């Protein structure tokens, strides 16, 4: 009897170790922080689905920014800015749209698909830390909403993000590259209320 139990346990361990067991998909984490009923910021971490893991960093970023813009619009905000920490994304404060982000972070990127983001040798290449978003479960940036433009900080426009064909191009390519379904582009949302 003991040998049977041991065999079953060993078999289970072998299945897990061999990678035959189905891995749970790990969508992006998104923490929405509200203060007195108003959204203070959205912090984002992770990649859209580490199981398939075919989305490029730029595809991930496009999906994240669009999702945040949708939430801001639902809550009546028209603008937002990107904050960062020491291990930050490296996006400068006056990069305020996806096209600018791509041309600053990956100036030699050739298109929307995962293979198009090349790692060349130019010193202008890969100035941002967006790579960390893949397979890491920590925050790489926060998006902070604003009702109006603010004088001292350039902002992204929510409406412009939602109508941005450049962002749509990355999302469409992510679906094609990773064979995702639209419904798989989801976030695990957590709410913090103060």
């Amino acid at each position, binding site marked *: 009897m003991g040998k049977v139990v041991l065999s079953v346990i060993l078999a289970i361990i072998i299945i897990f170790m061999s990678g035959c067991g189905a891995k749970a998909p790990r969508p992006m984490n998104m*923490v929405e922080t509200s203060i007195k009923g108003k959204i203070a910021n959205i912090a984002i971490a992770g990649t859209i689905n580490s199981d398939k893991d075919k989305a490029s960093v730029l595809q991930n970023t496009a999906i994240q920014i669009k999702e945040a813009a949708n939430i801001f619009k639902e809550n009546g905000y028209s603008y937002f800015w990107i904050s960062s920490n020491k291990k930050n994304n490296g996006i400068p404060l006056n990069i305020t749209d996806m096209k600018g982000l791509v041309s600053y972070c990956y100036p030699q990127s050739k298109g929307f698909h995962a293979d198009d983001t090349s790692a060349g040798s130019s010193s202008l290449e890969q100035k941002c830390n967006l790579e960390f978003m893949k397979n890491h*479960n920590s925050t790489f940036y926060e998006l902070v909403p604003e009702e109006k433009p603010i004088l001292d900080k350039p902002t992204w*426009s929510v409406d412009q993000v939602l109508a941005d064909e450049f962002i749509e191009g990355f999302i469409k390519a992510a679906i094609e590259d990773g064979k995702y379904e639209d419904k798989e582009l989801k976030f695990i949302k957590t709410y913090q209320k103060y």
Partner: protein
Amino acid sequence: MKKFLMFSALAIAAMANEVQVFTSNTMRIELDNDSKIEKLFFGKTKEFYEKQGEILKDLQKNSTSALAIGTIATLQASSGEIAKNIVAGGSGAGGVDTNGGLIAIGAMVAIAGGKALFDYAREDHEYMMMSKAINSKGEETLLYTLIVANNSLETQEGEEMALGEQKKLLKDK
């Protein structure tokens, strides 16, 4: 709508170097040919992030625009509030579980504020020009121009390039 498009990104060849220029207009106001542009800062981005707070404080002191004072004050107040509240939440969660960890890192983000980019920015060959612009209606905005170059630029060369980009935002009436 196009005339309100605040962002321009273009790569131009200058002095045989590869150069990128990014310009933004914070208040998204329309600037006409009668608008005045006053340089507040030009230098390396590292220096810019160190001095940004000081420049904004001076701007607030000297500004006659109620809007300008209001918007800067709003930002400072809300950032402070976010930092304070998130720190409280993060310590409560203990920073052990995933969400607690996220929040704790979030607190660092909020506290770091404007200095964050300075920590990571490649200080060499990145230059920032910050200017105040006032249009003929008396509306104020700030213009930020970031220049990214493979090689270092002379101050005058960089300043002229940045100002040239900012002047491109001026439209005929």
